[in-house]
């Protein structure tokens, strides 16, 4: 090893902050992808699941004989057949010590509790053979009444979702600022208040609707099993499968290959993953299960579904005095991985960016005979943000104040950070005023207000409204000690390894498993800067528990904030080890070495330098290393954040409402988000766009609707309205940057911001357009029918469809598509 002279004198451009186009794209734009369903293994068998057509019933008999004799069918297994080995699907978040968990068999044994629940599985040589045989399984059910309406479910004498439980309540979680010492007495604040506004908001049930349907392949090899799954969480899945099935953890390998979106919907341990593993173990053959879209909408977990009773107290001048939230959160029929944790995460966010002196949050987790709810983009924080940003507008109307002025009067000022809120969170950094000013300029606020005025005065049938949402969220899930204090079953750290290869190339192993977020590109940028190696020389490995053995995966806007921080720390350790080798080879002391642009040089000795790639080769050869040093400069790091991070932003929507037809159209949408340091502006902008689409979709389009018998009537993309390009506007986006203190990158997280912020901005805008016509609420999604009814009949527009067909808790259906008719068949007849 000799000193080299040919290093570029000029510093390479910094990678962090560059709008790098993605490394991931090459395979995705050419169809050279590795989706789980693409896999074909020799001798592979195919699974199809027989599902319950009834929402609640006892299984009295199952006849599988016809299915078993069908051509190509290898086996048919019922819940009874696997009752001793299937365990219970895990819930990792017992939010209260007395939380009731009814247990969740992967295949129902004695009773079914929602439509679509698995009651048997067909194993066949081809997928069509398996699907054909589904029709041949004959299941008898004794019907029980279905519990579908949360408010009815918690009333005295309610019917029961699970007849072996005492009530439909799973838990009652309370956060009281007065009791916690973070605020004053809430009841007193309301007793003393000059103004109190109370509202009931409905967060409709949503479906994550990732584009790639879920798919699982399991290959047994002796007593080892490899599972490929379209999952966000291969590491969590491996641990949980071991705990549920008893297959030892070290005998299990889980791989998440290319995964086509998740949005929380693939943050789960699914019945089908457990079933696939059990079948592969029993038959000793590789198996595959891939769902249809209808199966996905009907049986993959749903999101949101809360009824929120919100009270806000203030004085006449608009200084807020207290906030009281009572929440009913629909768990569905069972508790899944983090079902109870979703509303509890929201408990710390209902106060938003405002300085409430008093705050109390109560939440009941409620069982109903519907598919379980769990994480969906934002998970608890969109619900909280919607409630606070809607009630602030309602309070402004009550006080006769401008909604922005009311917000400004109460929000945390830039100079007050770090600020500990009434919910006990310490908000890290930000400037709400600057973000708001930028957003107002971006949308052209004054012109829009003038146009609104003109339309009102001229009695234009198309009215214009402007809605604002000034939001924050808690990201970077999560400090392990905080998760511990909330009784979550695991930590919130993330792991990374960096391997310096002899040729100077770099492998980065991350425990945060991507499914569209661009980790390979962003992590390469982080490492290129820290090690001074070219962006192209970095390869990011992930998503396979045998390649990346430790990890906590991807959700909660945590990947860059926690996983990226681990990468940076591993890089720092690599440099520290390389420094020892460099000092030895350059015959200098470590203190005299400088590391810049990927090379160590000796202060005051021009020309004497060693590139980190040369050190990697020297370490590989190991001919001449410092005494006692092991021949490696590779490093691992595990990062556990001290605090959450708190991105914030101001979102403004201008909405046209046609008062003749009830049709709404977003005229303009602008937002300014502060997500801390931006590693890749191209990716950040894309995350904001996609988040906005989902938040706007909640406001305007999407709703999972059950009929009075508990059938999902939005079970296809014909009925569940994922927006198309023609349904969405152009977005004007911008940023302010306040670094996250305590995070080595300064990043705060961006994955959920657009979804969390946009929903209330859109609804506030629609209401602003028609409030002068007497409308004070419209239930989401704002379908033309609902808007029209709110305009013409008063109220909030009511249920989505006409009463008597498929309304939420509405009158009973006479439809033959329902399952209460003897002739119906959805996987099994009566």
């Amino acid at each position, binding site marked *: 090893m000799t000193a080299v002279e040919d290093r570029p004198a000029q510093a390479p451009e910094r990678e962090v902050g560059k*709008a790098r186009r993605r490394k991931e794209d*090459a395979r995705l734009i050419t169809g050279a992808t590795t989706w789980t369903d693409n896999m074909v293994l020799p001798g592979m068998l195919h699974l199809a699941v027989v599902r319950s057509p009834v929402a609640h019933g006892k299984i009295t008999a199952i006849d599988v004989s016809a299915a078993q004799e069908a051509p190509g069918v290898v086996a048919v297994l019922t819940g009874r057949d696997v009752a001793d080995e299937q365990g219970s699907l895990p819930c990792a978040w017992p939010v209260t010590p007395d939380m009731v968990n009814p247990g969740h068999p992967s295949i129902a044994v004695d009773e079914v509790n929602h439509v679509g629940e698995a009651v048997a599985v067909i194993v066949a040589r081809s997928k069509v053979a398996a699907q054909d045989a589904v029709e041949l399984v004959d299941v008898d059910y004794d019907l029980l009444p279905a519990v579908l309406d949360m408010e009815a479910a918690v009333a005295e004498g309610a019917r029961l979702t699970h007849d072996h439980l005492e009530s439909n309540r799973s838990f009652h979680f309370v956060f009281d600022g007065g009791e916690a010492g973070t605020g004053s007495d809430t009841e007193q604040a309301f007793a003393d208040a000059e103004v109190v506004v109370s509202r009931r908001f409905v967060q409709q049930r949503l479906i994550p609707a990732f584009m790639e349907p879920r798919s699982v392949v399991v290959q047994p090899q002796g007593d080892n099993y490899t599972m490929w799954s379209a999952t966000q969480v291969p590491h969590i899945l491996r641990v949980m499968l071991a705990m549920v099935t008893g297959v030892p953890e070290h005998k299990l390998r889980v791989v998440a290959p290319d995964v086509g979106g998740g949005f929380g919907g693939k943050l789960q341990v699914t019945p089908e993953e457990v079933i696939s593993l059990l079948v592969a173990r029993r038959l000793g053959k590789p198996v595959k299960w891939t769902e249809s879209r209808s199966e996905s909408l009907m049986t993959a977990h749903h999101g949101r579904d809360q009824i929120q009773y919100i009270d806000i107290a203030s004085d006449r001048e608009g200084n807020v005095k207290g906030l009281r939230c009572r929440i009913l959160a629909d768990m569905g029929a069972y508790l899944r991985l983090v079902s109870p944790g979703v509303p509890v995460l929201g408990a710390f966010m209902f106060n938003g960016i405002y300085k409430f002196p008093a705050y109390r949050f109560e939440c009941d987790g409620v069982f109903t005979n519907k598919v379980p709810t769990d994480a969906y983009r934002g998970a608890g924080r969109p619900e909280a943000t919607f409630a606070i940003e809607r009630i602030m507008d309602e309070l402004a109307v009550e006080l006769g104040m401008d909604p922005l002025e009311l917000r400004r009067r109460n929000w945390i000022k830039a100079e007050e950070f770090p600020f500990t809120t009434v919910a006990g969170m310490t908000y890290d950094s930000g400037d709400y005023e600057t973000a708001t000013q930028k957003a107002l300029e971006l949308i052209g606020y004054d012109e829009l207000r003038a146009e609104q005025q003109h339309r009102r005065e001229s009695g234009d049938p198309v009215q214009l409204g402007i809605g604002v949402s000034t939001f924050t969220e808690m990201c970077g899930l999560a400090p392990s000690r905080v998760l511990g204090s909330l009784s979550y079953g695991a930590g919130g750290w993330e792991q990374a390894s960096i391997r310096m290869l002899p040729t100077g190339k770099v492998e980065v192993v991350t425990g945060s498993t991507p499914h569209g977020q661009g980790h390979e590109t962003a992590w390469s940028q982080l490492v290129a800067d820290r090690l001074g190696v070219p962006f192209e020389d970095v390869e990011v490995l992930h998503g396979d528990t045998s390649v990346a053995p430790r990890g906590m995966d991807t959700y909660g806007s945590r990947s860059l904030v926690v996983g990226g921080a681990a990468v940076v720390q591993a890089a720092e350790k690599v440099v520290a080890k390389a420094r020892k080798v460099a000092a030895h080879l350059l015959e200098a002391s470590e203190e005299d070495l400088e590391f810049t642009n990927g090379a160590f040089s000796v202060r005051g000795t021009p020309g004497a330098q060693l590139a980190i790639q040369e050190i990697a080769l020297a370490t590989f050869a190991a001919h001449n290393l410092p005494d006692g040093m092991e021949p490696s400069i590779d490093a691992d790091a595990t990062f556990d954040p001290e605090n959450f991070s708190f991105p914030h932003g101001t979102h403004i929507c201008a909405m046209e409402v046609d008062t003749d037809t009830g049709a709404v159209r977003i005229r303009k949408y602008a937002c300014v988000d502060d997500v801390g340091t931006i590693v890749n502006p*191209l990716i950040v902008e894309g995350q904001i766009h*996609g988040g906005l*689409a989902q938040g706007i979709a909640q406001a305007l389009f999407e709703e999972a609707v059950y009929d009075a018998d508990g059938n999902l009537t939005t079970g296809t*993309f*014909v009925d569940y309205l994922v927006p198309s390009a023609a349904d969405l506007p152009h*977005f004007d986006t911008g940023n302010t940057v306040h670094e996250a203190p305590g995070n080595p990158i300064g990043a705060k997280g961006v994955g959920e911001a*657009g979804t969390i912020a946009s929903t209330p901005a859109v609804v506030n805008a629609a209401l602003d357009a028609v409030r002068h016509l007497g409308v004070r609420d419209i239930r989401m999604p704002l379908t033309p029918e609902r808007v029209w009814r709110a305009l013409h009949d008063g109220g909030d527009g009511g249920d989505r469809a006409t009463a008597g067909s498929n309304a939420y808790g509405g009158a009973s259906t006479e439809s033959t598509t329902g399952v209460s008719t003897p002739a119906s068949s959805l996987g099994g007849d009566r």
Partner: protein
Amino acid sequence: MTQINMRVDGVTYTDDVEPRTLLVHYLREQLGKVGTVVGCDTSNCGSCTVHLDGAAVKSCTVLAVQADGGEVTTIEGLTPHGGGLHPMQKAFHEMHGLQCGFCTPGMIMAAVDLLGENPDPSESEIREGIEGNLCRCTGYQNIVRAVQQAAGELRTTGNGHAAPAEVDTAAAPHVAGQA
């Protein structure tokens, strides 16, 4: 079983299929053309879009036997083997018109077909032109940008496949860097 003949991505195939077999299942399961994917079961999402005799079709709404004697182009054959990237593929990459990438093959095939009919579409014509293809990740804005860029390139260069096969990960000039 029915015998069919089909030319797919420049290769001629003769196979026996069940009459009920959908074109997409024939492509994926019998030919191994897994670049084309299935995203729904009601022909709403467009993930399975391919070109049949030069026009975009959702291959889940076509029976394999209906494509008998036809010429099919999938995302894997959009440019001849070794022919580099199609301008539409390049534009999706450069404009960040994809995140998870599951809808991308179908979206690209639909967008290529759109430009065949309308070489210079407005933003709203693009949005309406691809409304049969759902994307859950991008909010469509960068897909619209990609189609606009590809349209511009195709108008000036004709249907040339000049782009190299390797994607260029240089910084996108249309997005401001962060100091």
